Every structure is written in structure tokens, then in C-alpha cells.
């Protein structure tokens, strides 16, 4: 498979997943606010700032706005054409990458990503408000689920499909670390946090990861911060836990190269395998010992490292030297060194 094709499949998948995650985070936060007493600007700000940190947009956002309110955060993260992480731009980027590899993906996949693109191009903030943001967010989430389902159901599960999985799980793991990191203060028990308000928050975080029902089923218990952390990081079977994502990512990388477990043929496999082992042999106490914030930063550094290693191993081909006898041409076209498409997020660890 062409490196360029693998690159486009990977980013097509990442951007679709990102759009879904942003829709879910916004949706949950809006619903959370409905459960709280009427909020002044200061309270609104405390509720929206973690959202902006989760998506990695807090720096960019405050260049345009003084205060974070429901209206301006939603505008910024849904249809704002200047924000590379707005849902509009994520879906556009996903579709643009799909267009690049249209002959590689199934017709059904193309039509679905093209449909959601045409749909979001036709949206306005007014429309979103009128029909209720819930409707808008559920359209985005459903489109992503449909796209992933169509991908699994209509595409050959070969190397190209595996690159789609790599993109999807890397993005998902990344987003889960960001959500936990952005909300780390509410895991530190403060006397001011009442039990009810705390439960609301922790539940909101679970719902941001689509994991509320799974959590209940797994623990059959109250929502407690420790268990929330344990579930979202270390659960073996929940498809959005970091451990599950790391495992799936590692599996996909091994299918691509044909390298068996416990071995590695490139840096990406080495780092992914190491991360899986670490998560497999970790418990909640280990996280608490280092502290949530440090632990999440460390995870993000590792995930970024895997992303960069994948890029070096598969997606990027260094320009080859030209035959000496020929006159020297213009500088070779193509990608600059480093990951080819901007991640569009400030790395928390940076």
C-alpha cells in the first residue's frame, strides 16, 4: 500500500473519531449544566474551561474570547471555521482525506462521509439552537458510529483497514487521557465539593466517554472518583478505556507488520507493546502514587511517541538522493519531516 494512502486513511479515521469525541464532550457538559442551579458567568467559566482543556483549545480560545460561556464555547467547537478542532473542520478534514483515497475505501464509506460533510456545511448556529444542540450532537455521533460500522462491514480487513484502526484507537486513547487530565481537580477530594455535585461531575465524565452504563454494570455501585479513574484507564473490556485502546492499537500494528507478540520490528511496535504491558500490570494505587495529573501527562507523551513512531515507520518516506549525473531539480515536493498533518492540539505535556 502507498505510504500516502496509509497516511490519509489514518487521518481520515482520526478526524472522524475526534469530531465524535468533541460532540460528546459538549453534549455532556450542556446536560450537566441543566442539573445545576442557575449559573453566573464565573460558574459557567469553571464548567467550560475543562472542556476547552480536554480538546486542547484553551489557548486558542482565549485569543478570541475573554470569557468562556456556553454560547461562545459551542460556537468555537462546532462551526467555527478558524478553529482547526471545530467539528466542522474535523469532518471536513476527514472527508478531504477520504477524497484522497476514494478508490481505496468502499463506496458506502465514501457516501457516508460525504453525506455528513454536506450536512455540516449546511448547518448554522441558528439552526443548531433552534432544533436543540442535543439533536446536532447526536447527528455527529451517529454519523461517526455509522461510518465506523460501515467501515467494518464493507471494507476488506487488510492493511488499509488496520491503519484506520490505528488512527481510531490512538485518537480515542488520547481523548480519554485529555478528559481525565482536564478534570483532575475534581478527583482530589475537596471539602467544598458536596457529594451530589461530585456525583454529577463524575457521571458527566463517564458519559463523556460513553461509559456510564458500562460502569454501572461493571461495579454495580455508586459513582466514585477512584472507580471512575480505574474504569476509564484500566478496564480490559470497555472499548474506550485507555488499556483497551492501547491493546487494540498494538494488535493492529502487529497485523500490519506480521510481527508476533513479545517481539518488535520497529519503534512503534516496541512503544505500543511496552505501553500495553505497563497498563496490564498497573492498578489504581500506582496511578494514585504518581498522581493523576503526572500519570496522564506521561500517558500522553507515550501516545504521542507512538504516533510519531508510526509516522516514521510507515507514513513518511525520506526523499532519496537523486542521480548525480542529472542536473539538480527544484527542492523535492512533499511533506516536511515530522507528522504530516497538524494534530491541531496543544500537547498537555509540552
Amino acid at each position, binding site marked *: 500500500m*502507498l505510504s500516502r494512502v496509509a497516511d490519509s486513511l489514518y487521518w481520515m479515521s482520526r478526524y472522524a473519531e475526534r469530531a465524535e469525541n468533541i460532540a460528546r464532550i459538549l453534549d455532556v457538559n450542556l446536560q450537566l449544566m441543566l442539573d445545576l442551579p442557575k449559573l453566573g458567568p464565573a460558574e459557567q467559566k469553571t464548567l467550560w474551561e475543562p472542556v476547552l482543556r480536554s480538546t486542547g483549545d484553551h489557548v486558542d480560545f482565549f485569543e478570541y474570547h475573554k470569557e468562556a460561556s456556553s454560547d461562545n464555547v459551542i460556537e468555537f467547537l462546532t462551526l467555527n471555521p478558524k478553529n482547526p478542532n471545530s467539528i466542522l473542520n474535523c469532518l471536513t478534514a476527514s472527508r478531504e482525506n477520504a477524497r484522497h483515497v476514494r478508490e481505496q475505501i468502499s463506496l458506502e464509506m465514501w457516501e457516508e462521509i460525504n453525506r455528513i460533510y454536506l450536512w455540516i456545511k449546511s448547518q448554522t448556529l441558528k439552526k443548531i439552537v433552534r432544533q436543540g444542540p442535543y439533536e446536532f450532537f447526536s447527528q455527529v455521533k451517529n454519523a461517526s458510529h455509522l461510518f465506523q460500522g460501515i467501515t467494518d462491514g464493507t471494507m476488506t480487513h487488510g492493511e488499509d483497514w488496520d491503519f484506520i484502526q490505528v488512527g481510531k484507537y490512538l485518537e480515542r486513547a488520547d481523548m480519554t487521557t485529555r478528559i481525565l487530565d482536564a478534570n483532575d481537580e475534581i478527583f482530589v477530594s475537596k471539602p467544598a465539593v458536596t457529594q451530589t455535585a461530585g456525583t454529577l461531575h463524575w457521571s458527566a465524565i463517564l458519559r463523556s466517554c460513553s461509559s456510564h452504563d458500562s460502569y454501572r454494570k461493571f461495579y454495580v455501585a455508586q459513582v466514585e472518583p477512584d472507580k471512575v479513574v480505574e474504569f476509564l484507564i484500566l478496564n480490559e473490556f470497555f472499548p474506550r478505556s485507555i488499556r483497551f485502546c492501547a491493546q487494540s492499537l498494538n494488535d493492529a500494528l502487529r497485523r500490519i507488520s506480521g510481527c508476533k507478540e513479545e517481539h518488535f520490528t520497529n519503534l512503534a511496535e516496541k512503544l505500543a507493546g511496552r505501553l500495553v504491558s505497563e497498563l496490564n500490570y498497573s492498578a489504581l494505587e500506582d496511578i494514585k502514587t504518581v498522581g493523576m495529573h503526572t500519570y496522564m501527562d506521561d500517558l500522553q507523551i507515550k501516545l504521542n511517541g507512538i504516533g510519531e513512531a508510526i509516522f516514521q515507520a510507515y507514513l513518511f518516506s525520506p526523499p532519496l538522493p537523486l542521480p548525480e549525473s542529472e542536473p539538480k531539480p527544484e527542492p523535492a515536493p512533499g511533506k516536511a519531516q515530522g507528522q504530516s498533518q497538524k494534530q491541531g492540539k496543544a500537547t498537555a505535556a509540552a
Partner: protein
Amino acid sequence: MALLDKYHPGDFFDEMFAAEGEVRPHYATLHERFQQLDREEFEQRRQAVDAAFLRQGITFTVYSDEQGTERIFPFDLVPRIIPNAEWTKIEAGLVQRLRALNLFLKDIYFDQRIIKEKVVPVEDIISAKHYRPEMRHVEVPRDIYIHICGSDMVRDREGTYFVLEDNGRCPSGVSYLLENRVAMKRAFPNLFGSVGVRPVAHYTQDLLTVLQYIAPPNGRNSPTVVLLTPGIYNSAYFEHSFLARQMGIQIVEGQDLVVRDKKVYMRTTKGLEQVDTIYRRLDDDFLDPLVFRKDSILGVPGLVEAYRAGNVSLANAIGTGVADDKVIYKYVPDMIRFYLSEEPILANVPTYLASNPKECEYIVTHLDKLVVKSANESGGYGMLVGPASTHSQRADFKAKILENPRNFIAQPTLNLSRHPSYCDGKFEGRHVDLRPYILYGEKISIIPGGLTRVALRKGSLVVNSSQGGGSKDTWVLYGDS
């Protein structure tokens, strides 16, 4: 009232009507079925087809628009029909023409007999913008230069077919032909059986066969064929990706290919993989910055060297543009006589060369009656339609012609045939042309029909999509009615 009751063919050759109310026999079944539709039904089907094109992303990019707007290529639901006997003659004429053009290319890049015997003046060849001296004495696989040709044909007031130009570089539009057929089958499924329409869907298979046929012998089992595109922002990108998908081959950009030891490879996730045939949708100028335009970032450094060494095949060959030149066009009937000792089956449109002083005099004094074209432009650019021009446009062209006579030719303004087309809720006559697609591999084959382009603007003679043109499905019948 039925849909076509108030239709006036006007003072033109109308494809469907011999005279007002008098339907040509090969349109009879279609006409009858259309008359049973009411306006609302027709409008619904039209909207369904447009929506399907948009959903499938069958669009082209509008260059002038900063938003990168994608538009669908307007599609007219009334198909153009060609009876079998008429098609058989067109087919024979196009095959003859392509054989002659190909022998011409082989000749001018090797022995130049046609120049020595003074059939074509040497100046006209050397001055052709797309003549490539780099191709002198370079053997091309199986001596075929133009593998894919898209000739433009028109009919005059009497209904006679003329070849207007031979597109022997990178003719585009075949994907629209194929998609138009799919759309028509969805919109009018029952019509096809009752009318008896020859299929077109085998085109991509035939194209792949040609591309494999011309591959250099490599000792491996099956040749690797790729399609080279300028990239996603090219207005024909949809077509490139469509053809690659239909053939099941890789679509590559220049940056995906690399030349090592005069062999071409693509960069894959598993390392380098050798390429045998490149179906390039990139003009000669951009192919290789080491040989042609130095500023091309779309091409592959070293590609021409690999091609000359016989390690990779290109379709079409480099240097075919000389046969595409509108000055050289004038000599095609002479080429047919010279190389094949046959009389041309299809006529050329009479052509005046501004480089000939006598003809130039005629051109500049009859600008209001002629169509002037620059020798190497395409897409309907660089053109003056005399009868529709203003005084200042003519003055402007006169100056341009006198400044660079080699670059201009003129032809009488043809009264192009018209076809009923659906415009703003009613049927009106609009001018049409026909672009058949010809493939040259082990033998020459043409898919029945071609792309019928229609000038949807009232009175317009320009069918190009960049100038408000649309297209129609083209039906070649099994029989004659």
C-alpha cells in the same frame, strides 16, 4: 399536454425531430415514453439524479471560487440516440483517423517521410508547442503513441458529422459518460430494454487491458499499472479516482513515485514496489522536472530517463500533443491518404491557417463570420466566435493573430445540430457535440457512443463545462430504429 408538444426544432439540424412534430424513427420509442410523463414526474426524476450525483461526490472543482466549491456537472435527462448504421460509419472513420495519427507520430519522431515528401511543412511541426524533440528515435512499446483518444465531433445544418479536433493528450470526461449511464438506468429502468441500447460499462476493463498490453516485458507475472494524477485539487480528480477504482489500480501522485537505476517505483508501507505502466493524467510539461518544466512539483524526477530506457510505459506516450495541434489538424486528411492510401471516411472542418499569408488575410477580413481558435488551448479558452463577438473583441483578436500567426487557425462557424434539452421547466433545442473515446491496444476499439456535451446557455455554441455546458447520456442502438 404532453412534455414535447410545444417543441420547436427551429432552423437547425435537430437530432430528434426531422421537422416540427415529425420524430426521427430511432427516437420514436423514447419520444412515446417521454410523452407519457407529466412535468412533475420528470422534475422529480431530475432532482433525484442531481441529488445522487451530489451524494456520490460526482463533482468538479470550481477554480475561481475561494471556498473550493464543488459543483455537479449539469446532466440533461433527455438522451441522445445514434442508430447503428450511423455509428458504424463513425466508428470506421475514427479508427482510420487514429491509425493515421499514430503512423504520423511514429514517422515524425523517426524517418520524417511526411516532411521529406512535402505533405506537411517542417515549420508547422517544429513550431508546434507540443512537439518533443526529446522523443526523436525513442522506441515506444508496440509503436503505439496515442492509447486513449477523445475526438470531438459535431454535425452541421445537414446533419453531416465532422471531426472538430483530436484530443490525443489526456482527454477527460469518460467517467461522466459512465456515470451518466448509471444515472439514466436508475431514472428510467424500463426504457433500456424497449429501446435496445448498447452497453458501455466495459470501458474500464478495456482500458486496463490496453495498459497491461503496452507494459514493458519484465519477467514478472502481471504488470503493475498505476494512474498518475496531479492531485486532489485538479478539476478532473473525480475522474482519476473513479477510473483507478474501477480498474482496481493504485492512484499515485508524483511524490509517491521515485526513480532508481532508470526504474520507477512507488513508495509503499512495505518499501519500494516497481511500476510498469503509468496512465498519466498529467501533461508532458509537468512529467519530469529534469527534462521539462523545472518548476513542476507534480512530476517525477528521472521519469523520462526511465521511459527512454524502456523500463516503464506511459499512456499516452510523450509528444502526442503535436498531433493535437490545431494547425496539424488541418493535415489529418492528407495523412490518411499518405499513410493508408485511403480516402478519409469522416470529414475535417475547413480550416484556415493564419501562418499562411493568403489565408491570414482572409481570416482577418472575415472575423465576424469565423470561429478563431488558438492552436494549443483547450477547454473553450482562447477562442473567438465571430458572429457572437463584439467589435472590440474582433479588434483584439486581429492584433493577436497578426502578432503571432502560427498560434491561430480559423474555421467557418458551423450551424451545430441541436437536441431537445430540459431547461427551466421546458424543452428547448440546445447545441450538442459528441466526444467518443477510442482505445488503441492490441486493436482499436471504441465504446459505443461517447460523451454528448450540450451548451445549456441559450444560443451558446460552447459546450465546455467551464463555460456553462452540461452532458447527456448517449445511446447507440443495436438496430436502426
